[in-house]
């Protein structure tokens, strides 16, 4: 019941976010309407990071206690995490085409986001390949913990890799300080995405619990 209320709250917040993104936030002078994609991109990546943090918490919790609820938490967070990372990459790509003139560039932030995406897709693939729930939780725990411990290492290596190869960034001038209406719009969208994530997390955990009780 609480999950359902959360779902409706997320819907309301998303509608408000959509309204703010198109109705309230002003048209950007240089980039025009394309800038509105940021309302999707920034909340997407923040929510994805939140989701992967939850995966890590679930993994460590499972290793320490071996309780199935931790495993379900990690699974339930990983799937929306991959979804939100995908939204980030796709919306960034759509934003990049008119702004940078290319769908994809091997920029540090893009590359490390893509690597993150691949790590967690692999994680979900692995989960799908193991039938025994106990064994699945164990191997997923190991991959999840290594993946999370790896995030800072990936981040720095990709950053240095770009810095050493190409000192001048193609990202153009530094983004100007964000205007208040845009900041407010981003905030509303961020809250909406976090609510959506919370709803998906709750719903997925419920499904996983039902799956486990019916299988075992």
């Amino acid at each position: 019941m609480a999950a359902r209320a959360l779902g409706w709250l997320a819907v309301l917040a998303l509608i408000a976010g959509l309204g703010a993104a198109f109705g309230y936030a002003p048209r950007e002078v240089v980039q025009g309407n394309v800038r509105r994609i940021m309302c999707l991109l920034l909340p997407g990546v923040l929510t994805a990071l939140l989701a992967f943090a939850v995966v890590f918490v679930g993994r460590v919790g499972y290793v320490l206690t071996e309780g199935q609820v931790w495993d379900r938490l990690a699974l339930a967070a990983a799937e929306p995490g991959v979804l939100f990372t995908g939204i980030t990459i796709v919306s960034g790509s759509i934003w990049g085409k008119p702004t940078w003139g290319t769908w994809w560039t091997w920029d540090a932030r893009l590359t490390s986001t893509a690597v993150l995406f691949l790590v967690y897709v692999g994680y979900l693939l692995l989960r799908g390949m193991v039938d025994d729930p106990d064994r699945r939780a164990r191997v997923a725990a190991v991959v999840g913990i290594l993946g999370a411990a790896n995030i800072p290492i990936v981040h720095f290596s990709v950053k240095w890799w770009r810095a050493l190869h190409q000192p001048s960034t193609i990202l153009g001038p530094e983004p100007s300080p964000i205007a208040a209406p845009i900041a407010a719009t981003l905030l509303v969208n961020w809250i909406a995405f976090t609510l959506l994530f919370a709803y998906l997390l709750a719903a997925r955990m419920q499904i996983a619990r039902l799956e486990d009780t019916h299988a075992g």
Partner: protein
Amino acid sequence: MSGYVRRAWMVAWKDVLSERRSKESLNALVFFSLLLLFVFQFALGPERTRVEAALPGLLWLAFILSGLLAFGRAFLIERENDCWEGLVLSPGDKSAIYLGKLAGNLLVMLVVEVVLLVLFAVFFALDFTPALPALAAVLALGTLGLAAVGTLFGAITAQVRAREVLLPVLLLPAVVPVLLASVSATQTALSGQPLAEAAQWLKLLAAADLVYLVVGVLTFEFVLEG
């Protein structure tokens, strides 16, 4: 502690001995390396400058492709004759098994890498001798990182369906930092610059090796009992 080291040593020794007698992995790996060289040559064409420009990347591409085969096999051989049960039942800390397997994998990888360097030197008429000490340091650090993750993931994928596909899918994104750092440091070493130029990358490699080793040692028990 000495018992722990001895257990790790026994696992490594057992693997080396069975490899020496059967020569199953190493023969295939060396031949595979030779084939990779042909593939690289066909892909890049006869121009020497292109090969030289791409050399650090090519070397690590060859190492990691050979590594994927080696890491996959290290635990697969334990599936035969129920050796896996023997490992699980062995007394003491299970992470000793991880370290033993890691040592075996490292040895195989280093042999393959030396063979690959010789093959590259012969087929592409390259001279590695001036860069050899620096190259050895980079190879050791990079291979340790690859093998630390590879051994852990090899143990995981040995017990799941579609293991041949899953190992690369899991391993490649995880070792992106190792690859970036190793290729950059190798570039520095090959260009004759002092290795201090790549100190940043070597530190990153050392940190990554340490993190992977710690995660491997701490979590391996979970993998084995599954």
